[in-house]
């Protein structure tokens, strides 16, 4: 009856942690919450991030902004592509986590993970093209050189969509950071594990610490201090329900954060440039022209 000694082996479970400033801390609150699959089976205890964790993440994101926004577009593109490379190697892990978290078939989860990997590649290519698409040389009526170029808006809070724990997550992170913004991301509340595992990929993809910070927990609890934070420049409300979104948008008015309201999105469809443009400012430089 020794069917297989190997199958009797007790597996090593993973302790999921937050990702802040390139490090993997537990929540400062010491809290966790139970994450289950769609049938209610226990999967893991995820960190239940606190307001303090959210504020720490903003500090880390702000600290990383100068270096990341100042990096060349070529460099940022290379790093996003590197994320895709790292993900490809862990494809099976993500397929399992997405299938369990979202209750998808293996085929469904595979499609979502493959699309997410391809999305990193797609956005990697945008790094050195968005300025050409969104910028312009302006023919002003006078002897002036006049050029408009897009620049990152700063620290962006991203509430990841609840219904698409990995493809949706990647679809909000990649467009925000490829242009030079840094991000504080709140993972899907019910299925945070793919996000927390993505952090391990980001940490090994040459992405500077603090560019992406990932928090798991109650979206409403973490989002409120982020929307009110005076050092956050923009917020993507994709993961907020209608009632919460109104409250957060009001809070965001206090320092005139750029707000991307929740809207129906088909995460599998071609994303277009909307999410890239939402977190860009246009800077116009004038200089006299003559000899």
């Amino acid at each position, binding site marked *: 009856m020794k069917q297989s000694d190997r199958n009797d082996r007790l597996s090593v479970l993973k302790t999921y942690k937050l990702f802040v400033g390139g490090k993997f801390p537990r929540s400062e609150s010491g809290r966790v919450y139970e994450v289950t699959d769609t049938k209610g089976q226990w999967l893991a205890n995820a960190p239940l991030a606190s307001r303090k964790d959210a504020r720490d993440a903003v500090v880390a994101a702000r600290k990383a902004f100068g270096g990341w926004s100042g990096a060349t577009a070529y460099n940022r593109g290379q790093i996003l592509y590197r994320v895709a490379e790292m993900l490809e190697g862990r494809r099976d892990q993500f397929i399992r986590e997405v299938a369990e978290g979202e209750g998808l078939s293996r085929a469904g989860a595979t499609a979502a993970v493959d699309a997410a990997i391809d999305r990193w590649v797609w956005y990697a290519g945008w790094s050195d093209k968005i300025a050409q*698409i*969104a910028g*312009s040389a*302006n*023919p*002003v*009526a*006078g002897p*002036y050189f*006049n050029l*408009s170029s897009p620049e990152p*808006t700063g620290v962006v809070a991203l509430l990841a969509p609840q219904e698409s724990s990995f493809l949706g997550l990647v679809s909000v992170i990649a467009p925000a950071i490829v242009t030079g913004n840094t991000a504080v991301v709140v993972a899907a509340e019910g299925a945070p594990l793919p996000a927390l595992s993505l952090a391990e990929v980001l940490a090994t993809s040459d992405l500077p610490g603090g560019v992406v910070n990932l928090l798991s927990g109650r979206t409403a609890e973490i989002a409120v201090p982020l929307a009110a934070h005076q050092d956050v*420049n923009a917020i993507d409300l994709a993961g907020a329900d*209608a009632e919460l*979104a*109104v409250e957060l*948008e*009001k809070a*965001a*008015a*206090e*320092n*005139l954060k*750029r707000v991307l*309201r929740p*809207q*129906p*999105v088909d995460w599998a469809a071609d994303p*277009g440039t*909307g999410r890239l*443009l939402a977190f860009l*400012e*246009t*800077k*116009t*430089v*004038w*200089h*006299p022209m003559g000899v």
Partner: protein
Amino acid sequence: MPVFEYAPAPESRAVVDIAPSYGLFIDGEFGEAGDGKVFKTLSPSSEEVLSEVAQAGAEDVDRAVKAARKAFATWSALPGSERAKYLFRIARIIQERSRELAVLESLDNGKPIRESRDADLPLVAAHFFYYAGWADKLAYAGYGPDPRPLGVAGQVIPWNFPLLMLAWKVAPALATGNTVVLKPAETTPLSALFFADICRQAGLPKGVVNIVTGDGSTGAELVAHPGVDKVAFTGSTEVGKAIARSVAGTRKKVTLELGGKAANIVFDDAPIDQAVEGIIGGIFFNQGHVCCAGSRLLVQESVQEELLDALKRRMRTLRVGDPLDKNTDIGAINSAEQLARIRALADAGEAEGAERWAPECELPSHGYWFAPTLFTGVTQAHRIAREEIFGPVLSVLTFRTPDEAVAKANNTPYGLSAGIWTEKGSRILAMANKLRAGVIWSNTFNKFDPASPFGGYKESGYGREGGRHGLEAYLAGAAEPTSERSEREGERDR
């Protein structure tokens, strides 16, 4: 050296015929406010009452929005090339009537005729020309192959450039197929009402442009009206925040063009004479009633003395007085309320230890006046270095290194504009890169053009006006509300 005084050279008022009273312009007709309320608009240089204007209430705003909704169906369905022709007509009529409008603007606003004639009016016409040309080319603008208008635009504009701000709002809105309800500022409503007459002369269909005059409460009604699909506001950051709160949870698209506290940075290798002219224009243009005014002068320590001497010498030549005099550099402060605000902030500058200086100048006995003023010894903690004064008051700070200049320039919740003065090209580009502001003028200041996007970072608001970028605010993106939704809401309103 003998001093040659200027003889008075007033522009004639005869070219403009101001009626004793004006109504609201709704659905192509002038009419009284529903409750018959009126307010007076006066000339800030003499306190003379120019006219009486209707104060629109909630009911009037509702009527205007419904008129705009009704007109939207046909206006948005017109081929772009036809809309373009209406805008070209408007541009031409503005050019024809520009002398009349310049005098009117100077009378109602207090700005020198030199500026309304040579800056405001040419730019107003140019904006309509520029956006006219976009109306039939929207599919090429980079906002998708099938760009659609949003519906009814509710637009609220300030008193510093009454007609120019109208052009910035109305031209792109009409070019993209939206219809408009515009509320001009309480103290400067007249040029917008004259614009209504230009719309009539151009044969613009009824209801495409509606003008409701009134105070802040009228603006608040307009912004909050459920039939409005798009809100465009230029004004104070405080009101901008209130608007952002009021549209929370709605599908209204919003652009806000708000305050600023621009740093005008002068390096030791700057061409001093040109820099002085730029500093003067940067802060004293339009009495300093400019959101992108260069109100914080950052001077490199090694040239501080030389620059300030030259600046004071130049300030002594500024002529303050009658806005209609062609030799006037600085006109009247727009209102008693604004004058009080400027005085309070300037007094705070003195009380907090900065040193105040103004050239000797005789101010007229009637009207609202403030002499061009300079503060030295200003630190970043002073209110005059942090708060927008919106008047002819310049605060001077110093720096030693480019890094220090960047840190001080960016040390503000605003991010509208900045100036850089240096002969070194690589330094201009490096500084321009690091400054967090939407418009950077290097070796020049306060230049505007319809082809050039304008707007701010941070708390200076969101969105851009002007240029290709200015179209985005009036077009629906893939997931944004379409005019069909607006139609349905319109029905509910009816």
